[in-house]
């Protein structure tokens, strides 16, 4: 399945010009992020305006330290910008309370990280269930959705393994399953293939592409890999906290 979709992804046209109807999945207006430590002030993002259309697959590229992770964290409501406005699906969320942001992250956003961030003391299926713990649903329903998500990443045979018993690629697939278990509309992946060899990396990109094409998920991915970025619909390049084109 993964190989097939990966091949298919390569065939799809790279650029989708027209913005889809309805509000954009994410919209950033005049976003700035400044980190202040004791003496140093780091400007991680400055005057950033960006719209990600609903159903778009976008890559963010740029040299290390240019603010890619910061941008993704702001988009994913993990971090508040120092200035500017963040909208998600048309709602301005900049002023939301912590509790409401948490609920949005839970229902509408799925994160994938470079270093997987699995909980090593929990089995694969328990890891995947994690986001659902913050929703009201029965344990049985949670389990059902987790197994379904694991099936999507072809890990049905590893549900009761512990993360340390899996390869890096398998671990990242678990992380993807965890990101999609709650059926979010937006997937944010911060260098998801950064710790993987290229074959495993392609597998992950294939899954993300499939989620984008088949399920209509909006995907924003940070990558260093031009080859992978080329498979996505649009590339945003950052340099020193600014968008370069």
């Amino acid at each position, binding site marked *: 399945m993964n190989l097939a979709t990966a091949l298919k992804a390569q065939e799809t046209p790279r650029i989708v010009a027209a913005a889809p109807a309805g509000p954009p999945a994410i919209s950033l207006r005049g976003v700035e992020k400044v980190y202040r430590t004791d003496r140093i002030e780091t400007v991680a993002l400055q005057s950033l305006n960006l719209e990600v259309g609903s159903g778009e697959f976008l890559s963010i590229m740029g040299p290390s330290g240019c603010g890619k992770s910061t941008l993704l964290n702001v988009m994913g409501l993990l971090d508040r910008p120092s200035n500017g406005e963040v909208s998600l699906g048309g709602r301005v969320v900049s002023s939301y309370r912590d509790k409401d942001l948490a609920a949005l992250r839970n229902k509408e956003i799925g994160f994938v990280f470079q270093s997987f961030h699995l909980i090593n003391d929990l089995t694969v299926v328990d890891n995947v269930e994690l986001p659902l713990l913050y929703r009201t649903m029965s344990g049985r329903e949670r389990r059902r959705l987790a197994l379904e998500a694991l099936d999507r990443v072809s890990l049905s045979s590893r549900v009761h393994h512990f993360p340390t018993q899996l390869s890096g690629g398998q671990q990242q697939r678990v992380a993807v399953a965890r990101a999609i278990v709650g059926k979010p509309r937006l997937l944010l992946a911060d*260098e998801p293939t950064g710790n993987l060899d290229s074959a495993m990396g392609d597998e992950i990109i294939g899954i993300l592409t499939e989620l984008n094409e088949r399920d209509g998920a909006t995907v924003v991915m940070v990558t260093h890999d031009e080859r992978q970025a080329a498979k996505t619909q649009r590339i945003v390049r950052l340099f020193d906290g600014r968008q370069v084109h």
Partner: protein
Amino acid sequence: MIRHLFVLVWNRKRTNALLAAELFVSFLVLFGVVTTAVYTARKWSLPVGVVYRDVIDVEIDTQGERRKFTPADSELFRQVAAAARALPEVEGVAAGNPAPFTQSSWRTDFRLENGRQVRYAAGAVTDEWADVLSLQVTRGRFFSREDDAAKGFRPMVITEQLAHEVFGDADPIGKELGERAPDGSEEEPYKVVGVLAAYRQNGELDEPIGYGLQRLRWDGERSTDHMLVRVRPGTTAAFEERLVKTLQNVAKDWAFRAQPLSASREVTNRLYVVPLILLGGIAGFFALMVALGLIGVLWQNVTQRTREIGLRRAKGAAAANVRRQVIGEIAAVTTFAVGLGSVFALQLPILAPFDFVSGGTYLVGYAISVVLVYALAFVCALYPAHLATRVAPAEALRYE
């Protein structure tokens, strides 16, 4: 969520074992201390049956043979009592052993026909004992002159508690108490002539054990070394000295020591209470140490788990969820500790190693200790849980 907590705590056995051990020991210590406290409170709330106010205990050293009076000693003893009675402040005089609040006790065991062992405390007192101590007779009567004519038995007055233990709901009056000597009878059996509402020799903190009083005769050869003197209300402490002088004049070779029962009561109660206070203090200190230890370990846990906490936040946990996670985990660990502790603690009501502590006392002590150990864990988790809510997810998840 509860399953998640238990799975996580179980899978992190190694980290949590120390915490569980600490909570397990705390639980057992709490159980011991709380059960002692419950037992003490129960004792305190039971009726004593003795009115100690305005009664002076006179301890007499007859310098003679213990246990037996010679006819001359007996005569002198009656003269001493008469001298006391003649004082205007005195309302009544009785003699007996052991006197209230003297900490000395005399225990007797015997086996009922159904094989059950009954244990009770006993004393030997004169007919006036009931009036001097304002004892309340609920059934039958207290000792009196009519017992002088008793033939073939020895009269006894017992407490309702002992009556219940031995005779159940049946009327105890006229019944024999104790075992008959198997070889016939060399000694006359005891027969119940009256029942007292209560009689707890050493007061509120005395073991709630059944009591049986035997009759002491002023003209008998059985000796005693205590005399109780009831005085008019409002009699001052100076009277004690006068009383001793008066008695001393009657029996020049004997030694007398007078002390109000209220004073003996204070001394006795202190003897019961001081170990309890020490025990409570040690337990409190122990709980404080455990609490500091718990806070430290939980704090360290939180700092070691910032990534996991950040991840939970990223996946939709609000600050309140993170707080609940930390508190929930320690609650789960506590549940393991209490579960293991219960196996030990609940042996006590079954084995009943102390016959005077009832099963109900253990259960109440158990319930309170369970609540306390959870409360301890909860309070100790509050600050670490608060720290956990302060973890900034973006920072915690940064790729190094």
